[in-house]
C-alpha cells in the first residue's frame, strides 16, 4: 500500500487530495501511466507530464525515481509560493 497525494489543479482534476493504492509500478513515471489509465479525470490530470512535479516521501523526485518501499508519493504542478 502506498499513499498518494495530489495538490492544486492536480487535486481538482483527480477529485481527491489523497488515496491509498496497491501498485506494481516501479518508478514515478510508471505510477503516472498507471493512474492516467484509470479514468477521464486522471487522464486529464496526467496528460502532460512536463507540467507535473512529484515528491517521493516528501522529497522532490525525478520521473524515473524508484518508488519501491516509499510510503507516500505526491503529484502537483510547479510550485508558486513566495
Amino acid at each position: 500500500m502506498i499513499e498518494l497525494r495530489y495538490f492544486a489543479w492536480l487535486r481538482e482534476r483527480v477529485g481527491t487530495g489523497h488515496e491509498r493504492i496497491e501498485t506494481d509500478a516501479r518508478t514515478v513515471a510508471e505510477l503516472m501511466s498507471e493512474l492516467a489509465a484509470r479514468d477521464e479525470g486522471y487522464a486529464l490530470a496526467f496528460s502532460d507530464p512536463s507540467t507535473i512535479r512529484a515528491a517521493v516521501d516528501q522529497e522532490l523526485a525525478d520521473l524515473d525515481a524508484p518508488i519501491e518501499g516509499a510510503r507516500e508519493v505526491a503529484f502537483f504542478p510547479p510550485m508558486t509560493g513566495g
Partner: protein
Amino acid sequence: MDIRVQAGAFDMGAELNSFAAAQSGAGAVVSFTGITRDLAEGGLERMEIEHYPGMTERALAEIAAEAEARWQLAGSLILHRYGPLTPSDPIMMVATAARHRGDAFAAAEYLMDYLKSRAPFWKKEITQAGAEWVQAKEADEDALSRWSDPDERGS
C-alpha cells in the same frame, strides 16, 4: 533558523524587530516581504494558498540550512502563510542577519529563489470571473541557475 508555516496573518514590522533583537553581533539585517498584489487587470477578491504539510516545513528547513552553510549568517527566518488571503495581505517574509551586508543580501535572495521554486506552495487567484491557479514562471526556475556555481555567491 526560524521556520514558520501558518494560516494566520503576521505583522512584518514586529517580526523584523524580534528577529533583529535575537541576533547578537550581526550588523546587517535584510528582510523580504511578499505582499498579495492586485492583478494587472484588477479585481482580485481573494488569494488562496495551498501547501503540502510536512514536506513544506522540510523543504524550507533544507533551504535555510543550505543558506546558512553557504554564507556567514547569524540567523535566518522564513515565514509563509497558507489558506485564504485578502489583497494587500503579507503572504510571506524571509529575513537574514549577518556581520557583512553582502552575506545577508545574497542569503535572502537565495532563500527567495529556492522558496519560489522548491517549496510546495501553490497560489490560486479568485476574481469575479472565477478562480485560477497561478502559473509558475520560467524566470523563477531560471533564477536558480545562478546559485549552482559554488563560487558565484550572488556578489
